[in-house]
């Protein structure tokens, strides 16, 4: 991975605020007092051992999971059980999943136009123009009329990124976007994400790709057992980790 760093700085506007968020699965305390502020254009990488609550944290931001205590405010709108507010937030927050989750019965183009047409009420022509624009940005416009089942894993994940971008979200969430990919396809997806970062997108990314984290992230957050144990800029995080748990974790993944 390139050692060159992306220099674009984060803005001042607060995009996400999590205030002592707590969540339980039955007796199991998954998220313990999570406090997190994300500013516009900021890029954050979450890492930590399996089961530490990384996925749960970012899935709370678009209400795929419900938090039970604390407050989450996204782009000025507080997440409550009000359906209108949840839908408003989901329109502004794009998400990319580990297993792509493309709609297999729709073509690549239809995958990309579905939400703009049914949620943003965009005319078909316009939605298709937007879709082609983003498919070009992820470099697969020639696959537009194919079905997801006909594409490689890397191509599918790039379509998933394009699909999310077609809603013109203000924030993008990534949950281990490269973990299900063969090694030779990881780079094409990471390159796409780096380009997205260059365009100034606010990004929260769960990943174990530490090279990517070093290049792209403004801040790396280390989670363990449902807590944010440590957060720091990449240089600081890798060269001078403060907590013992962070050092153990880094020792494991940087061999």
């Amino acid at each position, binding site marked *: 991975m390139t050692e060159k760093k992306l220099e674009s700085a984060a803005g001042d506007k607060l995009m996400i605020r999590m205030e002592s968020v707590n969540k339980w699965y039955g007796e199991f305390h998954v998220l313990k007092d999570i406090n997190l502020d994300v500013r516009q254009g900021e890029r954050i990488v979450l890492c930590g051992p399996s089961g530490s609550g990384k996925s749960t944290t970012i899935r709370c931001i678009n209400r795929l999971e419900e938090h039970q205590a604390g407050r989450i405010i996204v782009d000025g709108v507080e997440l409550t059980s009000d359906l209108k507010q949840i839908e408003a937030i989901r329109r502004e927050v794009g998400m990319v999943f580990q297993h792509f989750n493309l709609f*297999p019965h729709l073509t690549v183009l239809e995958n990309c136009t*579905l939400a703009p*047409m*049914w*949620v943003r*009420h965009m005319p078909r022509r316009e939605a298709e123009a937007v879709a082609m624009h983003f498919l070009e940005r992820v470099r697969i416009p020639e696959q537009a009329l194919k079905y997801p*089942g006909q594409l490689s894993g890397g191509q599918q994940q790039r379509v998933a990124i394009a699909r999310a971008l077609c809603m013109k979200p203000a924030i993008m969430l990534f949950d281990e976007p490269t973990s299900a990919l063969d090694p030779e396809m990881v780079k094409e997806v990471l390159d796409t994400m780096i380009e997205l970062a260059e365009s100034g997108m606010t990004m929260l990314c769960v990943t174990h790709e530490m090279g990517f984290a070093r290049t792209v992230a403004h801040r790396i957050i280390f989670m363990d057992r449902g807590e944010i144990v440590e957060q720091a800029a990449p240089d600081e995080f890798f060269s001078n980790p403060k907590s013992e748990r962070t050092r153990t974790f880094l020792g494991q993944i940087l061999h």
Partner: protein
Amino acid sequence: MQTTARVQPARSSLLRDPKFRGLVFQILAVFTVVGIGWYLFQNTQSNLAQRGITSGFGFLNNTAGFGILQSLIDYTETDTYGRVFVIGLLNTLLVSGLGIFFATLIGFVIGIARLSPNWLLSRLATVYIEIFRNIPPLLQIFFWYFAVLRAMPAPRASYEFFDAIYLNIRGLYLPSPIPADGFNVFAIALLAACVAIVLVARWARKRREATGQLFPTPAVAIGLLVALPGLAALVAGNPVTWSVPELRGFNFVGGLVVIPELVALTLALTLYTAAFIAENVRSGIQAVSHGQTEAARSLGLRPRHILRLVIIPQALRVIIPPLTSQYLNLAKNSSLAAAIGYPDLVSLFAGTVLNQTGQAIETIAITMSVYLAISLSISLLMNWYNKRIALVER
């Protein structure tokens, strides 16, 4: 050394060539089947000739001379066996059609209820499925016929609903519509409403694609369906008068009678098959991974759009093939009619007609061909539909 090396692969290529071997086996199989068929045919012909039994299909033109419990077309005892065949076929198609329609309806409702987050609803659905799918269909027919419908009171003590529907041991008496003055205008208005709905739906879709605006098509459709025929009835007078069943002496006159045999058979086949269809529907919906719902949610799609645009199209692909075999089972199970004397094709044609004419081979052959034709039609239709919606894979 060199020659053997060259000859060897050439020799082995014929005997060990899978294509050649496949062809040989297929030819052998065809010869065997044709041979056995020919032998059976010859043998039967000579046996029948020896015993002086007539063969051929001439009997279809002979007079039947017996009464039939239910016929959808006009029939008297002087009609031919050919007409009896048509009546049996129509009665079989009636039961199968009614059964398939109601079983699909109930099956989808129960299958979706089974997945409901409502504890009571999903538990009730489970109980329904486990009861009806685990009791043999013949027993269910007996239950509805002997335990329920035969236990109904005599006509004078009928159960009465809304002063118009009566249930007694002779069957279910319903009011039947008789066309009146306003009928034609009403029918035209109804047709016009249907055409208008199709046009509105098309226009709404075009407009949505062009401008992105959603249109409340279902509400407008219901409105049209009520308003146009309603207006026609107001202007042109009553479209139908109802012939309501009335007790005269010991029995009812007027209205429409559904014989208990038909009710029992339809009920049993419907409830039995619906339990299987419910399971197919449940597993079809569950086969669509949760990730699909999550992806659709994260794009901001509304729950009903998620169901309609993402879940149902994928679930249908899983539901259709087993649904086909349920339809086939229902059509074939309708021949259990013979057990309670409902005049379906088997009890009427392969039963009564066979007994009277003694032409077993012909009647059985005709009956079997008809079931084959019904089953093949259902299969072809469903396969065509399945192919149309199949997923494209690599």
